[in-house]
Every structure is written in C-alpha cells, then in structure tokens.
C-alpha cells in the first residue's frame, strides 16, 4: 500500500483504504456478491476443504456416540479435576461467538459503516460457534439423557431446578443469546434472499429462496418495517453480547475454588470473548476475501479496524490477567497466593507462559501500522490469539482444579484421544457450516452494500 506512516484515520487513509473499492454501482455490487452463490462454479478447493471439514465432523459424532455408550470416563477427567476439555471448549466457542453480534448489533447502533461488509458472515460465524459450544454442556454430563432435569418444567417429581446454580443461568443465557442471534441474522438476510430468488435461474432455487424470503417485495413499507425490526433486534442483542459471557464467568466466580473465585471475571471474560471473536472473524475473512476476490468489499480498512479492536480488547485482557494476579497476592489468601505460585512454577507453568506469549506479548505487534496492513501477519496473529484464548480457558478451568485445598487430593489432568476427537470434531463442524454458508447464502449483505455504494458515492461528491 502506501509508504510512510500517515496519522491514523485521517481522510487520507479513508481515501487510501475505503470501506468499499471505487467504481461500484448497485448493479455491479449485486452481481459480484450474488454470483458467488448463483452463477460461479463451485471450485475444487471448496470440495476438498468441505470434505476434510465434514470428515472431522464425522469423527465428532463417533466420539460422542462412544461417549454415550461408555460414559464420561473415556475422557481425561477425574477427581479432583471434574471439568476438562468439554468446559474449556464450551467457554472458548461461546467466546468466539461474540464478535458476530457485537459487530452487527453494537457497531450498527454506533453507525459504523465499516461493519457492513463483514457483519453477515460474522453473524453466521457467531451462530455456528454457539452451536458448537452448545454441544458441550449437554454431553459433559454423566447422564445426558437426564439433562432435561435442568429445564424448569412441571415434573412428575414435583421438583424444579436449583436456580442458585450458575449452570442453570447458563442454560438461559446461552439459549437466549442463540435465539436472538439467529433471528437477527435471518431478518438481515431477508432482502438478500429476495434478491437471490429473483436472480436464480433454476425453478427449485427460486422456490427455496422464495420461501425463505417470505414474500419480500422491497416495497417502501417492507423496507420501513424491516429497518425498525432490525433496529429493535439490534437493541435487544446488544445487552446479550455482554450478558452471556458474564453469566458464563459466574460458573467460576461463584465457586470457591482458588483461581475461579474472583470478581474480576465478568468484564475480563467479555473482553476476552470479543478478543477471540474478532480473531476468528479475521481468521475467516482473510481466506474468504482471497478465495472470492472480495478485496474491494473487505478492504484493508476493515482488517485494520478489526486489528485495532483486537489490540484494544487484548489490552483489557492483559489488564485482567494483571489484576487477577495482583488481587490474589493482595488478598493474602494463602490458597490464592499458592495458586499464583503454581501458575508460575507448578507442573503446568509452560501453559501459563505460552498463554502470556499468545495473548499479551504477540498482539503488541499490532501497534505497528505496517504489520496491521500485512494480511499474512494478521492472519497468523489471529490464529495465535485463538490459541492463546483457548489456553486461557485451559489455565483457568483445569489448572485451578489440579491443586486446591487439601494436598492429599491433588491430582493431574491430561486429555485422552477422545477429548481431542471431540474438540477437533467441533472445529470440523464449525468449518463445515461455514463452507455451506458461503456456498448457499450471500456472505456479504447485498442490500447494505447497496446503501454503502450510495453513501460513498455521495462522499465522492
């Protein structure tokens, strides 16, 4: 791009890296995006990628089936470490599922133009991540077929769930978040579905898209209602973004386990969630724009902004770590102090250092304009942050449990083959869904891009 280092966000940069490439008209935008779904032949790469992802998904189903037959004993968990990979992955996936709604809802309310071209697939990613996350709380129980006990329903036992338990709060938080995100995403899709309906050639496609479009005719009334509905949902989704991970952090902060029992968790979990969320958006956006030549829609501007958000949330997380550390020492609680020592010198110390490296040190590179504008670096960085955030959850969930109050009960944890199979399997599921998504739905909101065209062209004048 440009040499030298102009001040951030100056009009110059706007010009240099606009939110949409120059010279687009309504028609061209629509053509370009819809063609990905309708006309463009499916590439070999898509098939290969899909096949790999799908086989991983298969592995997951096998792993879960085996789990049902044998029991959670096939995992590495034990007493004292009652929670292992399952919960780590759950928290990690939910975290990832934050960026989408944040981008589409909060940035929408803040009227950030640059969200337009990334919100669609970010939301999709959110849904898929939440789906992956949703699997774990269910299967990690000893008797999944009894899990409905956690639902409040008039049972023949005359019993209700125990509402003091954070796990019950989870059930509500996650399901609500999932539902609202889904509606938000779908509502946003309707105009585009209509576009696809009108542009697709084969009859069956017309019918399917037609049904999904729910009779959208683009009349002024439709647009008016659409926008107010979208606005309302945005307003509804916004608090959820913050609540979900706060509630999940309660699972830990409400307990008495040293390393879990700390009040700083809610904010620091949310920040971490957004952090990993944006990382994942980058991880997907970068290959996507390359594969479908969308550099003009997902411009450096977007990448740059997302990098900045990552940097910001990353710093919040760093602050969180520091205070977790500080408070333990400051409290003088011998168990907390011991935990800190364990993290630094205990058998699991390498994980802690790796975590610091991935989540705190590496992201500092993002201060550099050059690196922010180097796609390859950004991509690597996003991967590193994802790993880092997974490590964070591992450190919190597992390592805190290995050495708590009574030394005689101390133990260790190491995952089994089945732990890995389930974890990697969910990744397979995630990628599979992404592949299907880009193939059958517009990965970028056509309607909103049209507006953008309008607005930017006004800027030109």
């Amino acid at each position, binding site marked *: 791009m440009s040499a030298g280092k102009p001040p951030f966000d100056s009009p110059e940069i706007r010009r240099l890296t606009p939110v949409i490439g120059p010279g687009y008209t309504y028609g061209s935008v629509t053509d370009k995006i819809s063609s990905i779904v309708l006309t463009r032949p499916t590439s070999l790469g898509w098939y290969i990628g899909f096949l790999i992802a799908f086989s991983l998904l298969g592995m997951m189903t096998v792993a879960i089936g085996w789990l049902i037959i044998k029991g959670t004993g096939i995992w590495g968990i034990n007493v004292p470490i009652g929670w292992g990979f399952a919960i780590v992955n759950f928290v990690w996936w939910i975290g990832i599922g934050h960026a989408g709604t944040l981008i589409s809802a909060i940035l929408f309310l803040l009227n950030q133009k640059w969200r337009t071209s990334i919100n669609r697939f970010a939301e999709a990613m959110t849904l898929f991540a939440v789906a992956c996350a949703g699997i774990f709380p269910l299967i990690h129980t000893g008797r999944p077929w009894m899990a409905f006990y956690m639902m409040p329903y008039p049972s023949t036992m*005359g019993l209700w769930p125990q509402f003091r338990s954070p796990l019950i709060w989870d059930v509500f938080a996650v399901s609500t978040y999932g539902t609202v995100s889904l509606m938000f995403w779908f509502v946003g899709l309707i105009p585009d579905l209509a576009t696809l309906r009108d542009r697709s050639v084969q009859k069956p496609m017309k019918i399917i898209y037609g049904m999904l479009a729910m009779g959208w005719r683009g009349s002024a009334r439709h647009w008016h209602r659409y926008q107010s509905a979208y606005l309302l949902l945005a307003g509804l989704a916004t608090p959820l973004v913050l609540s979900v991970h706060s509630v999940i952090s309660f699972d830990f902060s409400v307990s008495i386990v040293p390393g879990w029992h700390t009040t700083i968790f809610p904010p620091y979990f949310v920040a971490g969630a957004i952090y990993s969320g944006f990382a994942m958006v980058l991880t997907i956006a970068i290959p996507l724009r390359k594969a479908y030549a969308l550099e003009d829609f997902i411009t450096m501007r977007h990448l740059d902004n997302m990098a900045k958000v990552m940097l910001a949330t990353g710093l919040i997380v760093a602050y969180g770590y520091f205070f977790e550390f500080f408070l333990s020492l400051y409290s003088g609680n011998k168990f907390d102090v011991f935990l800190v020592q364990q993290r630094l010198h205990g058998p699991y110390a390498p994980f802690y250092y790796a975590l610091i490296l991935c989540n705190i040190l590496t992201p500092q590179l993002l201060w550099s304009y050059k690196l922010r504008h180097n796609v390859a670096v950004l991509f690597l960085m996003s991967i590193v942050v994802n790993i880092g955030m997974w490590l964070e959850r591992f450190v919190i969930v597992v390592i805190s449990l290995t050495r708590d109050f009574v030394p005689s009960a101390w133990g260790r944890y190491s995952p089994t083959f089945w732990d890995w199979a389930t974890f990697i399997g969910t990744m397979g599921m995630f990628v599979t869904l992404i592949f299907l998504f880009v193939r059958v739905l517009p990965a970028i909101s056509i309607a909103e891009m049209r507006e953008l065209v309008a607005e930017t062209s006004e800027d030109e004048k």
Partner: protein
Amino acid sequence: MAQIFHRSTNFIARFSVFSTLFLVGIALVAVLAVARSPYMTRQNITREQPVQFSHKHHVGDDGIDCRYCHTGVETSAVAGIPPTKTCMNCHSVLFNNAPYLEPIRESYRTDKSIQWVKIHRLADFVYFNHSIHINKGVGCSSCHGQINQMPLVFQANTLLMQWCVECHRDPERVLRPRDQVFNMDWKAPDNQAEVGAKLREEYQIRTTAELTSCSTCHR
C-alpha cells in the same frame, strides 16, 4: 416475469408458521400428560395373577384383617406377601379341591414359590416403610384405595413422587385415629383439617421440612 408463488401462499406461509408453534406447544403438553397417564403409572389397571385371588371376597366379605396375611406391615418396611403356607392354613380345609386353587396346592407340594405379578411398584431407590406410616395413623386405603372392593387388586394412585410429596408436605389431610388405620371404608370427616392437626400433634409427626428431606425416602 411470472410469479413463482400464487397469492394464496401468503396465507399458507402465515398459517404454517402459527400452526407449527401451536403443534410444538401441544406436543409438550402431551408429553407431560402421558407421564401422568395410567399408561405409564399403571394406575387403575388390573392384571392377571397366577391365582385369581379376590381381596373383595377375603377382606370385604369374609372380613379377614389385613395383618393376617401382611404380617410385617406394623413392624417392618415391607408388608410382606404371605407364604403359600398362609393360604393353606384355610384352604387345606376350605375349597381344598377347587380347581382354581390348584396353583396354591401345587406350590405347597412342590415347594415352588408362586410368582405374583407386582402391582404396587416403587423404583428401587425409593425406601418406603410401611410400619412408620401405619404407626403414625396413615391408613392402608389412603394409598392402596378400597382394597376391600377390589376383586382383582389394582393400583389406586399414581405412586408418582409428586403424589407422595403432596402428603409429606401436609400430612393432616390423611391422618386418622390409630383404630381406623385398617378400616378400608374410612372417610375423612368434614373437620379433617383440625382433626388432622390434632393427630399430628398427638403422633408427634415431624416437621414438613424433615418429612420432605430427600434422605427421608432416598438413600
């Protein structure tokens, strides 16, 4: 270009949306209902027994006391199904060649137990104790219904936990004077409320909190 959908589809669309919601609701209710239905609880279902033993005849007509056969009921957790010997006490003399009593005689001859179909079943993790209920003034018929009118015994109540807990939450409703415990025809008097309260005092029945602790029934 031609419309893909006829206008009527608008209606169909709306209709299907609402009906799905409706059906889901119905389904949920149905599941809850089935769980409580006699199909699952076996309430009010009589079953074939190896010997067509009639409580109506033995209790209702002959007026034999429950405890003649169910000997453990006042002292033990289980009332006890009588051994074949008990039947033979009388039937070695009465109807001692009635064909329908052959299974009894055979069992006595061959020393092979009779296999009765179990009517009142609690899950194995429920530890019900007959003796304490009897001693605290809970009558047979409160749970088993009017056995003296049953030619073939059936389960008069659901035996769902819900049902047990109702009583444990306020026992007053069913408490009766000790001398009425084995009376199959006992009906709650109109002033059962205060009678029950008084009896609860008298029998020193424990607080509801204690009666509804899990370990009262589950170990």
